């Protein structure tokens, strides 16, 4: 099948490639751009591990073709770090032991990042609802909720910015 050119901004850098139309954005990020922080779990939209932020919104990168992301602005887990230091969301998750094996973590963080860019005053119940599209098989979720709530609290108090 004829490959097609794609160009997008990934974590602030212009990136392009030549892909088969059937290639998912997740596979393009991982295999072509070597950004392996985005994890592929179920590959059919159920687990949330592959969640990235596209034009400001959380999206399953396994359910988007790379060719569909042409011209968009993509933020992946690799884009959170700031000059070698952890992003406030990453720091808060670390402080609350919000990961164990870490497989689901990129998806949780990118989902939480998109939510926090809308507002920071989610209740615990709202966090649980909003993060229910991401599966974790280790933590039992308590520490993840604690982590995102700590991040929200710090952002609300002006300790760091998104």
């Amino acid at each position, binding site marked *: 099948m004829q490959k097609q050119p794609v160009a997008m901004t990934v974590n602030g850098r212009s990136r392009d490639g030549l892909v*088969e139309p*059937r290639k998912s954005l997740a596979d393009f990020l991982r295999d072509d751009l070597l950004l392996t922080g985005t994890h592929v779990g179920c590959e059919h*939209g159920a687990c*949330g591990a592959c969640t990235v932020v596209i034009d400001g919104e*959380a999206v399953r990168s396994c359910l988007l*073709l790379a*060719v*569909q992301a042409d011209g968009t602005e993509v933020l992946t887990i690799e884009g959170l770090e700031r000059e070698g230091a952890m992003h406030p969301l990453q720091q808060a998750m670390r402080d609350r032991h919000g990961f164990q094996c870490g497989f689901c973590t990129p998806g949780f963080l990118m989902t939480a990042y998109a939510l926090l860019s809308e507002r920071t005053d989610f209740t615990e119940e709202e966090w649980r609802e909003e993060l229910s*599209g991401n599966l974790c098989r280790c933590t039992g979720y308590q520490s993840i909720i604690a982590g995102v709530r700590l991040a929200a609290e710090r952002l609300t108090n002006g300790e760091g910015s998104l």
Partner: protein
Amino acid sequence: VKPAPFEYHRPTSADEAIALLTEHGDEAKVLAGGQSLVPLLGLRLSRPAHLVDVNRIGELSGVANGDGLRLGATVRHHTLEASDTVRDGSPLLAAAAPFIGHRAIRNRGTIGGSVAHADPAAELPAVLLALDASVEARSGRGTRVIPANDLFTGFLSTSLDVDELLTAVLIPPWPTRAGWSFHEFNRRSGDFAIVGVAAVVRLAANGSIDGARLAFLGVDSRPVRAETAEAVLGGANPSADLWSEAARQAAAELSPTSDVHGSATYRKHLAGVLAERALHDAHRRASED
């Protein structure tokens, strides 16, 4: 879980998309939000030779409220839950939207895609039945309007022709003195409903029921309207006994199947319970309207 190869088309106008569908017929599939189609491609349950991506067709993405709501086929589920225009024009639609999948799914999934996919456990097809909505379909032969009642023909099947593009969903103006309700039951938030129900109750000036709509999801190979129960409700005086009798009748007519998520008996029971709650809630809202 990788799709079989296909040729990708990205038209920028509905005419261009329709020309592609006309040319490729049943070899082509329309790609809207992709939240159902892409998994089917990955599992190779669907193997189209051509994929027609309609996401960049500007004329399909509009939300307008004039004589009823006109929602372009690629309006995202998140827009349905967040847009004031949608909430004003159809509060039931806005209230049902958050039940669809999860936020990341709703950011991409579209109303036209959900309706054309016609999953019997999906929220929007049943909601369209309860709203007496229609869809607009365009092909090389012209434009036609298909009432939701005539659209859902079976499991993942609609009366759309292979060369037709669903371009918009049309929802009649929200009636006065009307109330709505949407209930669904599932094991985890965001899962497909085991059973769900959408209800609209319209009151006459004297407080009796002018008309009612009750539609179920998850109980058959397609969304189902409970017409017998609707007939029982029409003209009757609202009461707790009436909700319970109408819900019993509605459930009695259903013939759900058993699967890993629940037995047929359980689904029937659940349908009655949810219908009773939905009628009660819809009537309460109608009384406040």
